[in-house]
């Protein structure tokens, strides 16, 4: 059974913007799912409706078997949220603000647990400092600490690494790794597609309030990912020889390379024939290179289409 089940969810803002349009999505227990899409695609709206920050017009959201509207106490207790923006009370101390969130989720103070979380996020030494005294990166860590303060079963990370340094990003992913190993389900939105590529089990692509597809990352890469063979020559090519026209080769901008796209899962890639035909021309080979299109390439292609 999925831990989150969204059916026919629609939400329009008062200015008429259709933020979510008949969205259907299921999130499996213990997986990391990345929500990708351009700005305004509806990623944050989707997360906000699940977490209770926004009302929705129609549809239904079930979390761990409970309706998020009628049984909000049960569902919200399971959820931790790291919003996109840094939103903290500036005059509160780090420890107190994390303790506040734990209290809000209906749990008594647990110094050991809270200090543990602060330690993992390198915040323990700053626990008595006021939020306003922290750097942007440290504030982002506090946001994460707050979301983890009640040990949620589902964690929503809404662009958690936007504008943070490499060290924090690495720490973040370590935390995500350790949460995943404990069975926490993670829903992630990010503009860093390489992050999604690295972390996510499944990818959901949103555009204009609709889910374009939801697919296992590996199968998506295999299905949509193209493999390319780049053949470098010693001298520039004025025009592609007639004998090579059947391969649909692309000529690089500097005219020193030919690029051949192929399906590496196919029984015959055509590479052997291509190399034989190149040998029959007067072109002199310099180098060969193969590459696979990234999730980013797929994402850009899908959005353009």
């Amino acid at each position, binding site marked *: 059974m999925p831990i989150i089940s969204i059916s026919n969810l629609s939400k329009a803002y008062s200015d008429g913007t259709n933020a979510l349009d008949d969205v259907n999505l299921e999130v499996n227990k213990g997986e990391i799912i990345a929500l990708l899409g351009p700005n305004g695609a509806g990623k944050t709206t989707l997360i906000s409706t699940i977490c209770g920050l*926004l*009302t929705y017009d129609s549809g239904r959201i079930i979390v761990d078997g409970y309706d998020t509207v009628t049984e909000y106490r049960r569902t*919200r207790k399971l959820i931790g949220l790291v919003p996109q*923006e840094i939103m903290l*009370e500036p*005059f509160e101390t780090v420890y107190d603000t994390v303790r*506040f969130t734990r209290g*809000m989720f209906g749990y008594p103070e647990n110094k050991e647990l809270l200090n543990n979380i602060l330690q993992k996020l390198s915040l323990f030494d700053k626990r008595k400092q006021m939020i306003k005294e922290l750097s942007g990166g440290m504030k982002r860590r506090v946001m994460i600490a707050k979301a983890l303060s009640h040990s949620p079963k589902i964690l929503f990370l809404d662009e958690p690494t936007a504008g943070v340094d490499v060290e924090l990003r690495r720490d973040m992913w370590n935390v995500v790794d350790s949460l995943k190993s404990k069975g926490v389900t993670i829903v992630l939105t990010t503009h860093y597609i390489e992050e999604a590529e690295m972390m996510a089990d499944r990818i959901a692509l949103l555009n204009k309030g609709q889910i374009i597809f939801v697919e296992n990352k590996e199968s998506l890469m295999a299905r949509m990912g193209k493999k390319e063979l780049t053949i470098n020559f010693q001298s520039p090519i004025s025009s592609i020889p007639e004998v090579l026209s059947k391969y649909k080769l692309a000529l690089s901008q500097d005219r020193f390379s030919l690029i051949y796209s192929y399906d590496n899962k196919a029984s015959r890639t055509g590479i052997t024939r291509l190399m034989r035909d190149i040998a029959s021309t007067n072109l002199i080979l310099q180098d060969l290179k193969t590459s696979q299109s990234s999730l980013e390439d797929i994402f850009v292609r899908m959005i353009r289409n």
Partner: protein
Amino acid sequence: MNLYAIAAIYRFEMARTFRTLVQSIISPVISTVLYFIVFGAAIGSGIQTIEGIHYSAFIVPGLIMLTVLMQSVANASFGIYFPKFLGTIYEHLSAPISFLEIIIGYVGAAATKSFIIALIILMTSSLFVPLNISHPVWMIALLVINCVTFSLLGFIIGILSNSFEQLNLVPMLIITPLVFLGGSFYALEMLPSFWQTVTLFNPVMYLISVFRWAFFDVADVPVFHSFLATLIFSITCTTIIYWIFKTGYKLKN
């Protein structure tokens, strides 16, 4: 009921009070003492007594109500507006907490602050004039009711406000005139008959009247009318807040 959440909000709000002790407690006390000096000592010297009560003592309930009403509205409106302004309201909306629990936390903290300030003003006043409270239990009860009721009003103002300017608009343009024209510093019978009739439409007059009754056993209007007015006001505020949380108006849209 999510008692830990209520405690978290209450503790958080009270911590703000102690962090800003000067603004929260000392400044209203100073301004009330100034009122007391101006109205009690300067103007009061020409009035002597009202309904057999020394004028300096007569204005004490009005002074306390003026501060309680202003402080309750200010504390509660700021308490809920600040998370909205900072964006930290997301925690309230995403936590397993009902509208009632949020209200108990914020209104409870705002009312506590107002109550403490009222007691401080009462003690300060007793340094200027001797005070014999006729109905001390009712006095405390009415004080609590008014602290809570106007904190509810402040909570509504805080949710509906879109800026700090709007936050101050209602206290400045509505609450202050109503308190001043509600018999804080005079008895209703001192007004011309037309203005006496107009004042009967001022809900704050009923609150001040019954509060003065608790002090001196004299009231401008029947005590029952005052209790009824207070009850209607509380129910109205609670209903509006319930509707706001039910619909998410100004919170979830």
